[in-house]
């Protein structure tokens, strides 16, 4: 009994109708494509009316297959599957056909676009007739969530989930949580002290009974899929026993070995070989830096062990591998600073008094190396004039094309701090002042009133080669002032470079572990930039904060909470549906040739020596279909993507070629 196929061509307002003649295509389908019982075109198929039309046709016309020619299946496949199941038709007997993103939006002329739409519909109808009913596989969702990255976004996600009563495992690479925010002195625009608003959240996360914190630890491996991930975490050896240490800090005090702290103090300050990144570090447990510890390097000293009453120092502590089962993963791994040395003409690393924004954050921080006094590199003289250079490494084709979103506001914050603490002249060299969030523009106006100078133009060069009188011993900012329309040379004592926010160096590697990809620049790719920014292509893996794109603290916090909300949604639902696209082997036909055995990276194919056949472990199979294509006997089938379905789709898509060619010799093949 032939199938009764319903074809629905969507106008999508003018998105499709603008380039594709939808009425003609619908009429053509009815007349030229076999087994098409109903063929309609409608303004908005994804609207409730559009869906109702499908449901009614299924009931009234007895449709056994549905083809919806509209947008990408990644957008509305679920919508139309639900419409079919509402009307009692198995959702997998529906096939979408992408005539918007792949046809109308990229077409230059109407006729070729309409012809292409016809061939895609002919393909979809041929394919859908060979599709079989399937039931999605239900998998229980483990309520425990893994959050990677203890910055503000990760902390927000952790607290939201923990407060909702669900267990959270928070993994942080550095010895303490807090992320970049812990390095800041003030935060814009409210100028409230960064530590004051951050440390409560850090300690709350640390003491929360639902949160297990692994600091100085990294995510090493992820397997399994949404609802049932198996993760391996490498907890690096601190050489300090967390259960015994009271955080008294005696060991740090007495440790004779002092080294430059290039992490937290970005090279401005010092720390001991046994250290805590900053006073309010959470957990309040020091770490021994084995590269610089005299005991580890030359087998002498052990002062910290002597000073430690509770005896918490343990030089033989080894890395620990922790295996966990989690339902969902939230990546909140943040950003790294652009290496300002990559722009030699700005002189960072060569000219002493050129600082990066992170260095200045530490300068003006009360807990910083200069306890908040803004001084030059010599640590004594106060600058009488400061230049702040925007977009260093941002909005620059040679480095990062993106705008780092936060530097304009941070520059204003620095301007305020310099004016308030030193009364020096402050010059900001900007291209566009980007103050587009709540209270941002007001903060900018405040700085105008406080007398900060704003020069519009990209800085060409920062040099100490004085030319004019009055430039000796100064750093001269050579720039074009586009508003005055001429070159200017501004001599200053100190320069602050607003370095760009860049993706973490190992972002791509970590992304691959979790099965998600990165954008060209290196930020994690979200499922949809506007409508689904915290989810990713892989179900059960979410992203939050700057790792998904440069953003300020409020946006990072919002994304942290959003990711937590998405996870809570899945946990409360309890189960998640997995696409029933899996491979299966017909054991009668299998000759045990074992060619498929090493096709599967998920080890979902096993060989049964006794019966000389291979078998697919359905739970592990992710449905990629590589074994289906490899099987020499053709006895492995991939549900929803089997050879007959794709073969039919090829025949349908080339309907006009076969008509034009006129069949050659009688082909009974």
């Amino acid at each position, binding site marked *: 009994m032939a199938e009764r196929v319903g074809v629905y061509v969507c106008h999508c307002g003018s998105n499709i109708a603008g380039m594709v003649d939808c009425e003609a295509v619908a009429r053509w389908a009815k007349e030229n494509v076999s087994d098409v019982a109903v063929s309609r075109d409608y303004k908005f198929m994804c609207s409730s009316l559009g869906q109702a039309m499908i449901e009614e046709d299924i009931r009234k016309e007895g449709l056994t297959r549905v083809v919806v020619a509209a947008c990408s299946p990644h957008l509305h496949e679920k919508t139309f599957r639900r419409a079919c199941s509402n009307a009692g038709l198995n959702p997998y007997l529906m096939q979408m056909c992408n005539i918007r993103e792949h046809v109308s939006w990229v077409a230059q002329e109407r006729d070729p676009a309409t012809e292409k739409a016809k061939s895609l519909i002919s393909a979809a109808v041929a394919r859908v007739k060979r599709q079989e009913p399937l039931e999605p596989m239900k998998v229980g969702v483990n309520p425990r969530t893994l959050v990677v990255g203890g910055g503000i976004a990760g902390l927000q996600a952790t607290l939201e989930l923990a407060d909702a009563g669900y267990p959270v495992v928070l993994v942080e690479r550095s010895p303490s949580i807090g992320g970049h925010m812990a390095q800041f002195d003030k935060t814009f625009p409210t100028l409230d002290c960064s530590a004051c608003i951050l440390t409560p959240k850090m300690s709350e996360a640390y003491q929360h009974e639902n949160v297990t914190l692994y600091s100085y630890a990294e995510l090493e491996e992820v397997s399994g899929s949404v609802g049932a991930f198996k993760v391996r975490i490498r907890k690096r050896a601190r050489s300090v026993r967390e259960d015994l240490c009271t955080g008294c800090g005696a060991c740090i005090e007495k440790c004779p070995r002092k080294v430059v702290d290039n992490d937290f103090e970005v090279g401005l300050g010092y720390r001991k070989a046994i250290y805590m990144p900053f006073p309010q570090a959470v957990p309040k447990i020091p770490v021994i830096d084995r590269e610089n510890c005299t005991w580890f390097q030359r087998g002498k000293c052990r002062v910290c062990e002597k000073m430690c009453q509770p005896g918490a120092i343990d030089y033989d502590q080894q890395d620990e591998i922790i295996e966990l089962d989690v339902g969902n993963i939230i990546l909140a791994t943040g950003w790294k600073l652009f290496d300002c040395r990559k722009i030699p003409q700005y002189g960072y690393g060569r000219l002493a008094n050129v600082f990066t924004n992170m260095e200045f954050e530490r300068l003006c921080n009360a807990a910083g190396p200069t306890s908040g006094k803004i001084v030059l590199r010599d640590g004594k003289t106060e600058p009488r004039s400061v230049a702040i250079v925007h977009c260093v490494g941002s909005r620059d084709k040679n480095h990062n094309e993106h705008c780092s979103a936060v530097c304009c506001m941070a520059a204003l914050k620095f301007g305020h701090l310099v004016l308030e603490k030193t009364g020096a002249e402050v010059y900001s060299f900007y291209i566009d002042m980007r103050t587009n969030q709540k209270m941002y523009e007001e903060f900018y106006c405040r700085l105008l009133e406080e007398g900060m100078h704003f020069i519009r133009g990209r800085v060409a060069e920062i040099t100490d080669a004085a030319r004019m009188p009055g430039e000796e011993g100064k750093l001269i900012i050579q720039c074009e002032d586009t508003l005055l329309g001429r070159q200017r040379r501004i001599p200053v004592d100190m320069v602050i470079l607003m370095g760009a926010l860049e993706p973490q160096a190992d972002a791509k590697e970590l992304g691959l572990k979790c099965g998600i990809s990165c954008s060209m620049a290196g930020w994690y790719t979200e499922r949809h930039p506007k409508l689904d920014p915290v989810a990713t292509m892989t179900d059960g893996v979410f992203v939050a904060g700057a790792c998904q794109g440069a953003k300020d603290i409020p946006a990072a916090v919002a994304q942290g909470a959003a990711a937590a909300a998405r996870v809570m949604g899945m946990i409360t639902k309890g189960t998640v549906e997995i696409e029933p696209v899996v491979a299966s082997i017909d054991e009668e036909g299998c*000759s045990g040739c*074992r*060619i498929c055995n090493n096709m599967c990276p998920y080890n979902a194919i096993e060989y049964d020596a006794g019966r000389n056949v291979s078998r697919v472990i359905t739970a592990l199979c992710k449905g990629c279909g590589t074994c289906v294509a*490899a099987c*020499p006997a053709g*006895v492995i089938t991939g549900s929803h993507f089997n050879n007959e379905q794709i073969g039919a789709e090829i025949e349908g898509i080339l309907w006009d070629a076969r008509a034009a060619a006129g069949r050659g010799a009688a082909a009974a093949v």
Partner: protein
Amino acid sequence: MSKGKLAIYWAASCGGCEISILGIQEKILEVDKAFDIVLFPCGADGKVREVEKLPDKSIDLCLFNGGIRTSEQEYMARLLRAKSRVLVAFGSCAHEGCVPGLGNLHTRKEIFETNYHDSPSLDNPGGTEPHHESSVPEGTLHLPEFYDTLKTLGQTVPVDYYLPGCPPESERIWEALEAILTGQLPPPGSVIGVNTTVCDVCKRKRTEKKIKAFKRTWEVVPDEETCLLEQGLVCCGPATRAGCGALCPQVNSPCIGCYGPNGGVEDYGARLMSALASVIDSNDPEEVERIVREGLPDPVGTLYRFSLASSLLRRSSRQAEAAKA
């Protein structure tokens, strides 16, 4: 019961299938008991005129082996189709074109060039070559037309059953005859045979396959126990339908695929190509290209040795000739 009529014909083939029929030894008497042989050019006398006089569908069984290379063979295919109730494409040539089908890598002009003009051992000063019609004092003589492309029996007339193999083993022939005699036949149009591949019956030990290079048979003396493909030889066993009892691998010779593809497979060469390529142990395109180029100097000959005519592409492209024409 009255004796049925049996016709055995041979078109573009080598006659090996006929010999294999006789290979059923004494059971030929059983066949003789059940059938009157109306046409058996290789084994008995019989005139086409006689067959033409028979009413349609009066031949109970026709075992047709060989591909369709000439107009006469096409005529006989049509004739026997009209006259036979059950037409069996018997053996690899009828089923998928077999070695004669490899002629599809060339055109009629190139084949004649080699046969009648520039082969080293040829003595044909006048350069004569066969023509459809040639006039002689006595009148005009006719020879069949020689096609550019060899067609399988199935591509010429509807076929009831296919019996694969080059040649089919005598036991398989007897099983097929028995099935036909007793009427227990699979659905029309299908291949009479088992639906698995040679590895099912091959005794060799198989582990995971990782191939760094494909070797030619003279390049390696294979050991008796391990799978030949794992030793680098191009063994087509995994993709070839079982039925021969893995004769070749038993004697240290890789299977070359004469029983054709497993059930439900549309293109034998593509299946084999996909399997062999998937187990190449390299991810670097240049290295893969080298392994393939060195390991399969004649890819169509190796992958489509028996099934070129019935493959999706069926023959090589005649771009050059088409371009010139």
